[in-house]
């Protein structure tokens, strides 16, 4: 709770070397970031909540699974490339393939300067590729990336907080939506909200492409959702 009130960015740092984890942690702290370090890609996914089977559409699952925005808000993932098991590249792919987390910026670090590796990572969606050892100056490049997701998450939280007060009063008038499964009954409102929030950032572009204005949707639905 209250993640929206935190002004610090939260970074998840992944590296199999304890020495490098200590270093990146210190660098990030010096950059005024909150840091969580993990030693592997699978631990990183666990921390994010991306365990196998948790990504189902089962309504019961959704209500018990970690509510992403409030519990584990991560504004950036920074990961080493060379790790045993899941490499940084594998982790990058998994994150970008996940509907819930694809918008978290991912940065790759490597002590090897391999151009093919660098372009592969950037093509897969990495925001930056840093050569180790990473410097404070490198981390300054990350602020704009983290700012984007932070503001987005804050906005979603505010909408959610506002709508929680209104669930008793407002009947969802979600018509004309071609992207979300509409359940007009009151008890399903929460399910729709959660689903919409995870789909929100993905659908924003889609809805804009299809000519549906998100602003219009906001006023129409009285603060329940920001997108159609």
């Amino acid at each position, binding site marked *: 709770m209250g993640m929206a009130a935190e002004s610090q960015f939260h970074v998840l740092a992944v590296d*199999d*070397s*304890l*020495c*490098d984890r*200590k*270093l990146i942690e*210190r*660098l990030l*702290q*010096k950059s005024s970031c909150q840091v969580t370090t993990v030693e592997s890609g699978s631990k990183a996914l666990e921390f994010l909540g991306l365990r196998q089977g948790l990504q189902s559409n089962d309504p019961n699952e959704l209500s018990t699974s970690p509510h992403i925005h409030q519990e584990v808000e991560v504004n950036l993932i920074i990961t080493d490339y*060379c790790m*045993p098991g899941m490499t940084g590249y594998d982790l990058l792919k998994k994150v970008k393939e996940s509907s819930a987390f694809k918008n978290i910026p991912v940065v790759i670090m490597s*002590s*090897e300067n391999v151009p093919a590796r660098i372009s592969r990572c950037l093509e897969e969606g990495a925001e930056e590729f840093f050569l*180790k*050892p990473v*410097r*404070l100056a490198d981390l300054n490049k990350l602020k704009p990336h983290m700012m984007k997701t932070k503001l987005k998450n804050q906005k979603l939280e505010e909408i959610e907080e506002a709508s929680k007060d209104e669930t008793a009063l407002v009947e969802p008038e979600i018509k004309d939506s071609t992207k979300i499964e509409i359940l007009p009954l009151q008890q399903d409102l929460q399910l729709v909200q959660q689903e919409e929030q995870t789909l929100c950032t993905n659908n924003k572009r889609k809805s804009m492409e299809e000519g549906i204005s998100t602003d219009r949707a906001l006023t129409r639905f009285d603060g329940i959702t920001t997108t159609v």
Partner: protein
Amino acid sequence: MLGLGVDRLQADINRLLASLFHQGVLDEQFLQLQQLQDDTSPNFVYDVINIYFDESEKLLRNLRLLLMDREFSDFKKIGLHLNQLVGSSSSIGARRVRNVCVAFRSASELNNRLGCLRGLEVVEHEYHYLKNMMHELFQLEQQRLLAAGVRYPM
């Protein structure tokens, strides 16, 4: 009287560091480590270097065990261990150790066990030299802290 002890120790520290930079044992990354140390993390350099020592010694032990085996043939594993050593050495500014690891890694690609053993000896030598120098540095810094902490009653 008080000032002399601290100043002299500081001069010794500076001289040692200058020498290590001059020899190429350390590079500017070590300075970066020092800059990351502050009141909120006053033992950062000491802590990181000690973690580096622990990790490196495990890797060096494993390398030696692997290579002592006459039937040894898993040179890829050597490469993986060396990647880790190269990475962590460059992270703390241990330039010479990093360089000899890189050289060793290239040699290991020739798949020659005895050649690898020679490479390992060079790495071990550089590593132990670095470790001794770091210990000396930490001792001097410890003494300087103590000297700076002494207060004569006014």
